[in-house]
């Protein structure tokens, strides 16, 4: 079997704990306009995104549909070809015991194969991502077969070990996906992702299709696996409450760009970007006492087209504080570091105090504090 997949104690060529470093990642899709004025247009699904995932940690990309988070996830593994950018991934060389960074965008077939062995992906829909004709054993063993790991007997043993690791029974190996519930199917997907002992797992909305009680089981499992195996996660999600729960760092995306990025507590306690404020204010809290006095920022209109994004700041058409005409419509804001590790792309970032003056706060108003339940 393969070597234990923690990198501690090895001589490494990289000088930090970065497992994945993405710089200026861009993905354009060509969309053709049909009809009389036929012309090629570009949809900028991902427009210059940069982030790092550190060893044993979780970076979440959060945003609404169409913000480019899933395309980013797929581009990282070159499941869609990036248009531009650099994606460095730490690969561990078993012979020399060294770790080095490989640029996934430039990687040839052999190198890409090595990368994909170490970086796996789990998708949202556990039904669509599992072949209904295959047994659980052949599904989970598939990566092992593809990478010619072990003998048939060794693979069968590894599959049983994996199933137990994700909270299933070894006896489940001979069954087909249809005999499992949604949560169990997602566990099968996770077992398959773990088969080759990857260092990074990309989780693309892994719990969005699950019921609340099952969602909690899967989130706890992912947390245990991360601690036991030292895994790094790139977590793609739209649910801010889930993101707050799982993340070490969070990047908020809007129309193909990261608009704010910070360590988890920093981002949730002191958001800077008006979009982050708006998103947070829109998430309902399961507590009628809090919902009773909480007021929301209701954003007007819809997310603009990524084919023709607005000039200047992409968020200005919906922003409650945009100065238009003015800097917000004229100049696209750069991602600027406002506090150590806390980046925001906004001409008028709202500091800590803005929370208490705008109706986003979780604190009850001073004059009408609710009676304790």
């Amino acid at each position, binding site marked *: 079997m393969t070597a234990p997949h923690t990198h501690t104690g090895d001589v490494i060529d990289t000088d930090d704990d970065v497992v994945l470093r993405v710089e200026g990642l861009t993905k354009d899709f060509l969309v053709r306009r049909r009809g009389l004025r036929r012309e090629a247009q570009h949809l900028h699904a991902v427009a210059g995104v940069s982030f790092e995932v550190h060893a044993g940690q979780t970076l979440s990309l959060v945003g609404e549909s169409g913000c480019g988070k899933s395309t980013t996830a797929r581009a990282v593994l070159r499941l869609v070809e990036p248009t531009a950018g650099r994606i460095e991934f730490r690969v561990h060389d078993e012979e020399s015991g060294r770790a080095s960074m490989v640029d996934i965008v430039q990687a040839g077939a052999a190198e890409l194969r090595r990368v994909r062995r170490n970086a796996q992906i789990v998708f949202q829909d556990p039904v669509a991502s599992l072949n209904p004709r295959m047994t659980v054993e052949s599904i989970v063993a598939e990566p092992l077969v593809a990478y010619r790991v072990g003998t048939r007997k060794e693979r069968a043993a590894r599959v049983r070990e994996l199933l137990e690791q994700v909270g299933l029974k070894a006896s489940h190996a001979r069954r087909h996906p249809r005999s499992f519930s949604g949560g169990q199917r997602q566990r099968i997907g996770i077992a398959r992702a773990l088969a080759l002992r990857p260092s990074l797992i990309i989780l693309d909305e892994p719990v969005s299709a699950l*019921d609340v009680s*099952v969602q909690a089981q899967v989130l706890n499992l992912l947390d245990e696996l991360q601690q036991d195996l030292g895994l790094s996660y790139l977590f793609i999600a739209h649910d801010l409450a889930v993101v707050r729960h799982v993340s070490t760092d969070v990047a908020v995306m809007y129309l193909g760009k990261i608009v704010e990025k910070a360590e988890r507590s920093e981002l949730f306690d002191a958001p800077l970007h008006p979009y982050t404020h708006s998103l947070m204010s829109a998430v*309902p*809290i399961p507590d*009628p006492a809090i919902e009773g006095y909480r007021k*929301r920022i209701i*954003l007007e209109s819809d997310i603009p087209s990524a084919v023709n994004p607005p000039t200047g700041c992409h968020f200005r058409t919906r922003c409650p504080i945009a100065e238009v005409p003015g800097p917000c419509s004229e100049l696209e804001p750069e991602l600027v570091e406002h506090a150590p590790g806390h980046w925001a792309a906004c001409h008028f970032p709202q500091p800590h105090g803005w929370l208490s003056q705008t109706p986003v706060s979780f604190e009850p108003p001073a004059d009408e504090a609710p009676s304790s339940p």
Partner: protein
Amino acid sequence: MLAAKPLLEVHDLRTYFLTDQGDVRAVDGISFSMNEGERLGVVGESGSGKSVTAASIMGLIDPPGAIVGGEIRFRGRDLVSLSEREMQRIRGREIAIIFQDPMTALDPVFTIGSQMTETLRIHRNMTKKEARTVAIDTLRDVHIPSPEKRFRDYPHQFSGGMRQRVVIAMALLCDPTLLIADEPTTALDVTSQAQVMDLMLGLANDRGTAVMLITHDLGVVAGFCENVQVMYAGEIIERGDAKSLYANPEHPYTRGLLHSVPRLDEESKTLYSIRGSAPSLTTPPQGCRFWPRCDRATDLCVSERPEPCHGEDTNECACHFAGELHRPHQGVDA
């Protein structure tokens, strides 16, 4: 003060789906009532029977499904005994429903204007001109920008959130007294969800419409409903006014559910998780349906079904140990 007369009274309703593998008891003996203007949340996970409850009220149960027992009284009339023709007169005009996917209510080949005016001309005998005025006014009520222009647009020209608003406008055309909203924001992004819920709250208040909000999202209910009932495996296992139900859930399932949701206002470490998954509705467990997943199940729970919620009191709980759960116990309160 006079007690408000119930608008809707459901008594011991049973809706089964008769399949080759046996009867699927999707809704199995539920009782509840709703007053005029009340906002009631029906919460449950997939397969709990919440949507089948809605479809039963609307008379939308098709074979192999059937209402095999119980009654649904709307303003005193039993809807179960009505003919399809009689039901059609109630549907839309007195009780309207909106679904998760707005396209189930919209015809892709007609403009939204023609679909709205058709409804008004059939249900309210309006002239074309009157119908047009009412339709445009209603579009304005649901905050569709430039309604005169959008009136001529087809459903595909609207975004998801806008489409759901069009559906809400259509549901409100005949000024129903009860609006059933079945997962109305589940397919929407969180900012669109906030828009739609804000809109529904305003409309319900302005028009005095009673709303039954069916959802799996405990957060959405918290901000919208006065009363909540929790469904599990075809039964209502707990009901109460929202504030006390969320603050002091009596049923272990409700408690577990509330503790297993990550919250935006908390940095939790490990989530409480209810073990296992929902039971089969063909052969549900004997006794309490929740016992195989319950931390405090006893022999009594395995052998005897707890007294179901009667729908008579605001706060009820179908658990043998209701009222005793407030003392801390392992797991849920951790």
